[in-house]
């Protein structure tokens, strides 16, 4: 309880601090203007992937998406501004525009109980699939073909183009941003990792939402803003996971009760279901898997993953099966053992309340979130330090056709101090470990009434976290 009060006290109201910010996000054209440049870029990327050179480091789609954008997303955007990418993502833009039949305006009306005129079928997404399992499977599928995805321009073009197409089609059938909520693989991990981010959009006073507000315009829409495409009701929003920061609610709230806060790192701590816990497992294991296969020295693993070139079907099956097994069963089992040991030891103090293993399992999986995020940052860092120079050369020759748009086409590959990457990676992992353990201990105190029980429950999980951290260190620096 005290940690929550502490966090609340540290929050900074950004709309208060920067007057221009609120004016800017309330502009009807705000989201469109944020999307437009990314629309240009991703359009160029997809065209380059289809019509440009098949060589990865000469094609803008590979360099800009998997080196530049990925690095910016995971290292700069997520820790600081959370899901801000979702505001400016061009892939669901056409879907939004077709659902609304307007690019910047808002249409009041009445559709499926919402106060906007919406087009398309506006069906409800099936309850059974209203979780992130599809995103877990989707991300794991992309991870299985990751070596093809990040080296073959056409694969990236098909995946990105396919996502845009799917998002558009889904917007015509289901309400809101169904693709983003339930299918987009990027959205899956953005949602989970945005729990750590230092920015949040919340209602200032939930009592006003619940007791005073009659229209619930954030959720239902109004003549000033669209119904939340992420199906959020601000009176209940208490974590970042499913808020895409599109700012429609800021525009439509009749009580001017919504604001952007700056807050401490890892302020959202509540994992709400098995699907999210499994996302934490998958992301952590994949950070390790990518570091082993892509950035490791073992050629036979790369051969196995490189199915379309090497054709080693048996190797590929071993690689894929091992990956899926460890992500979905192997690592969760080890984590379960740590949780069970902690639970058993904590319960040895007889007067403890009923904290179930299930609750512990789900809530403590948050410890893997800061560690996983920082592990991903540590993984992405050498990629940009070593291959960042390609950004300049590919900018002038996006299709690998001998163009020279900005005069930088002849810049040769120049790694930037790659030998220092290991030091930075170690520091990042230590930060992730620190927050993982610390937040775990806070969660433990919230679950268990007794201080000693809380402490005991976290010891095995802490050991697991340390082991995982050292494993990453061995891979990166040892």
């Amino acid at each position: 309880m005290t940690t929550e009060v502490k966090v609340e006290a540290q929050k900074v109201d950004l709309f208060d601090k920067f007057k221009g910010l609120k004016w800017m996000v309330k502009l009807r054209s705000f989201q469109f203007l944020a999307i437009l440049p990314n629309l240009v870029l991703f359009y160029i990327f997809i065209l380059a992937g289809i019509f440009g050179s098949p060589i990865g480091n000469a094609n803008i789609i590979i360099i800009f998406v998997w080196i530049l954008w990925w690095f910016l997303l995971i290292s700069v955007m997520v820790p600081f501004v959370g899901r801000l990418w979702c505001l400016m993502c061009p892939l669901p833009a056409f879907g939004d525009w077709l659902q609304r039949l307007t690019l910047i305006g808002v249409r009041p009306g009445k559709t499926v109980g919402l106060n906007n005129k919406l087009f398309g079928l506006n069906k409800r997404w099936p309850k059974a699939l209203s979780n992130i399992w599809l995103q877990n499977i989707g991300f794991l599928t992309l991870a299985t073909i990751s070596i093809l995805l990040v080296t073959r321009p056409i694969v990236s073009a098909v995946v990105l183009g396919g996502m845009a197409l799917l998002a558009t089609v889904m917007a015509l059938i289901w309400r809101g941003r169904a693709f983003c909520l339930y299918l987009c693989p990027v959205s899956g991990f953005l949602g989970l990792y945005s729990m750590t981010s230092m920015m949040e959009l919340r209602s200032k006073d939930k009592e006003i939402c619940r007791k005073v507000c009659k229209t619930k315009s954030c959720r239902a829409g109004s003549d000033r803003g669209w119904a939340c495409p992420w199906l959020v009701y601000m009176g209940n929003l208490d974590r970042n996971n499913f808020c895409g920061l599109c700012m429609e609610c800021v525009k439509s709230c009749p009580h001017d009760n919504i604001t952007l806060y700056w807050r401490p790192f890892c302020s959202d701590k509540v994992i709400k279901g098995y699907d999210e816990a499994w996302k934490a497992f998958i992301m952590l294991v994949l950070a390790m898997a990518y570091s082993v296969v892509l950035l490791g020295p073992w050629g036979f693993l790369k051969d196995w993953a490189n199915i379309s070139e090497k054709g080693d079907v048996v190797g590929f099956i071993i690689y894929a099966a091992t990956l899926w097994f460890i992500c979905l069963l192997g690592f969760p089992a080890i984590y379960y053992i740590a949780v069970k040991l902690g639970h058993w030891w904590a319960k040895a103090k007889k007067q403890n309340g009923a904290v179930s293993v299930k609750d512990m399992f789900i809530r403590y999986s948050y410890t893997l979130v800061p560690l996983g995020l920082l592990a991903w940052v540590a993984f992405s860092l050498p990629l940009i330090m070593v291959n960042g120079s390609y950004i300049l050369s590919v900018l002038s020759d996006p299709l690998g056709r001998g163009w020279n748009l900005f005069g930088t086409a002849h810049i040769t590959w120049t790694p930037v101090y790659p030998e220092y990457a290991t030091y930075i990676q170690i520091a990042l992992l230590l930060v992730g470990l620190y927050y993982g353990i610390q937040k775990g201990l806070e969660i433990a105190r919230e679950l268990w009434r007794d201080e000693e029980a809380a402490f005991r429950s976290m010891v095995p999980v802490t050991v697991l976290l340390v082991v995982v951290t050292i494993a990453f260190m061995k891979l990166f620096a040892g």
Partner: protein
Amino acid sequence: MNWKGEILALASVIAVLVGVPLFGLTYQKLQDWKLTEGGKGRIFDLTGSTWYGVWTLDRFVGYNYWRLKPKQATIRVKEGELVVIRAHSTDVTHAIHIPAFGVGPEFIEPGKVKVVKFVAEPAGVYHILCGRTCGPGHPFMKATLIVEKR
């Protein structure tokens, strides 16, 4: 409803969808024009592949490179024409080498482009070779250049 804004927004989206490919095509045409010194010469895009052991005029691009069955190139030009060859590599480092015209060996990195220019005379049949041990297909990379009498 801000109709002016809507139309402006829609116009910008259409401008993007149409403009980007248009820009690409225009820039390419401009490059071709500059390279052939204002249309005086002829441009050929020659791609080297050690996998297939060819110098080919077929283009390896994103949507076809895995299923393309490239043919060894035969370039026909008229005597006295300015020949501009844009050499590409689709897999590894090659070197374009036309011994009869003193062209090369000029290294071509995969994904990069090397431009070689020469005037095609006298008439005859010549070969375009690969001037660097590139891989298994190296000895087979032999395109034909036919310079016809006027």
